[in-house]
């Protein structure tokens, strides 16, 4: 439904993504990536996680700068609140992933976005993490994501953007499906 003549620009380089898809289909070993994070305990429930290097396209890679994330718990947990809680960073990961997907799919479908905002809400019964009730799980009891999108598209096309973004999202997959986690002490 692109009615305007100006080329659609959501700032996503679709040609590069499509090119990578075709190239990696021919050399699937290059598609094997490894994502990494390093975390150090600071004090109390406060930790700092840094992210710099990763592996992909057959070699070591690194971000342009090192990113650092402080995590802590708020004062109602008797903590010092030096950072967001880890579960809130999970929400940030989901929101970032889905929204990147919305922009990419919109670019691919030639839909100009004007604004995209997502609100995330996740319920949790903290009797689980407190060990006070073994029937309650530690994690979220559900996540609700609400998008508000202003774009040159019909409501059905916008809904399809958001649905396709979920279908291709790594974080959505990580949250909705089980993943084996191995934790070792060395």
């Amino acid at each position, binding site marked *: 439904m692109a009615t305007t003549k100006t080329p659609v620009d959501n700032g996503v380089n679709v040609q590069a993504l499509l090119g990578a898809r075709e190239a990696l289909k021919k050399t*699937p070993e290059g598609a094997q990536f490894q994502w990494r994070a390093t975390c150090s305990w600071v004090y109390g429930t406060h930790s700092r996680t840094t992210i710099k290097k990763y592996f992909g396209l057959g070699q070591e890679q690194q971000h342009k700068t090192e990113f650092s994330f402080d995590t802590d718990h708020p004062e109602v947990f008797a903590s010092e609140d030096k950072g967001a809680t880890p579960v809130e960073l999970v929400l940030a990961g989901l929101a970032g992933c889905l929204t990147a997907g919305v922009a990419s799919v919109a670019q691919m479908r030639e839909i100009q976005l004007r604004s995209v905002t997502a609100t995330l809400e996740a319920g949790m019964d903290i009797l689980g993490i407190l060990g006070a009730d073994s029937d309650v799980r530690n994690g979220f*009891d*559900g996540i609700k994501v609400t998008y508000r999108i202003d774009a040159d598209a019909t409501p*059905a096309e916008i*809904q*399809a953007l958001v*649905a*396709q973004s*979920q*279908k291709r999202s790594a974080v*959505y*997959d990580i*949250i*909705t*499906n*089980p993943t084996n986690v191995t934790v070792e002490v060395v």
Partner: protein
Amino acid sequence: MSRCLTDRSIDHVVLERGEVGNSWKTERWDSLRLLTPNWQSRLPGFGYDGSDPDGYRTMPETIAFIDRYAEEISAPVRTHTRVSSVAPRDGGYAIATSEGDWQCRTVVIATGACNMPSVPEVTETVPSSIATLTPFCYRNPGQVAEGGVLVVGASATGTQIAEEIQRSGRPVMLSVGEHVRVPRVYRGRDIKWWMDKAGVLDERYDQIDDIERARKVPSLQLAGSPERRTVDLNALTRIGVQLVGRIAGIQNGKAQFSGSLRNLCTLADLKMNRLLDRIDQWSAENGFDGEVDPPHRFEATVVEASPPLGIDLVRHGIRTILWATGFRPDLSWLHVPVFDRKGRIRHDGGVVEAPGVYLMGMPFLRRRKSSLIDGAADDARDLSAHLASFLDHRR
């Protein structure tokens, strides 16, 4: 294909491991009817001449139809001749069968896309007290233990079997992955009528955006019933089937289901509506609106607020798991280097990379209808023409 080769006076044999229509005779459940209406099985020079063009053939009727066609065209069929190997030899192909060997210049692979049920790895961790079935061994609910049944897969096979088992009094839980929702009847006409008329089924493999994806689209959620029932997820929920997400794993007797059910249902609803939009547009542009019912839309798929993410199978009363998770071809006898890294045959619309080898009857091989009985005619015409010119150039 045999008919087209005969028309071109090309000498050939049709090798059949069992009897004509073997998989229809031996690998289908009792109540199954074709998902396409009677009128739609149009073979070269042969079609439906009965009094119920909008009905759906039962299996015995389907077998009789194919038998009659084989007779009508005097197809040179060698029954009970199982092919054990096809390999390149002397610029052609050496065929080893249970009834002796053949040498030929060209080969048409028409063994289909559904030779074996495709069952996910999680089947290995199913508790031993639970029976597992595939659509190949399932015949009717009578062979299923009383008690709960987990049907995995919600395409044509899974939804039909889930409905039948639920109606037999065994409570069904249906694990839903990616699926394609369509109504059986829209605006008073069969959905296949619309798809045929509007040219959806004739779309070609070389005119489609992403053919690889199109070839992997699951079968339409359709059933062929005398009442022309729509068997979508809402219909199943109404009779008491419980929907859960795609099965993600079974560990220590606990099945885990993906939390993506809602989105998969949204995707299917949106996709269905795009098809209906296209149909409405075609109808309006081609002056059909006066002959059919007015356009309308169907209720969105109803997903409960928090579908279960995991159940203890035994404690939940599940006695049987039926894997309706798709089918795959068995090409273990094909010793020609034409496979890609995922074991699929590399081909261009059925023209296989090895000279003189052709493929038929696969999803979206040349057209969207390629896997339908109705799709064979056009594909056979195209591919037999290619085959004939290949033989001409080799003379």
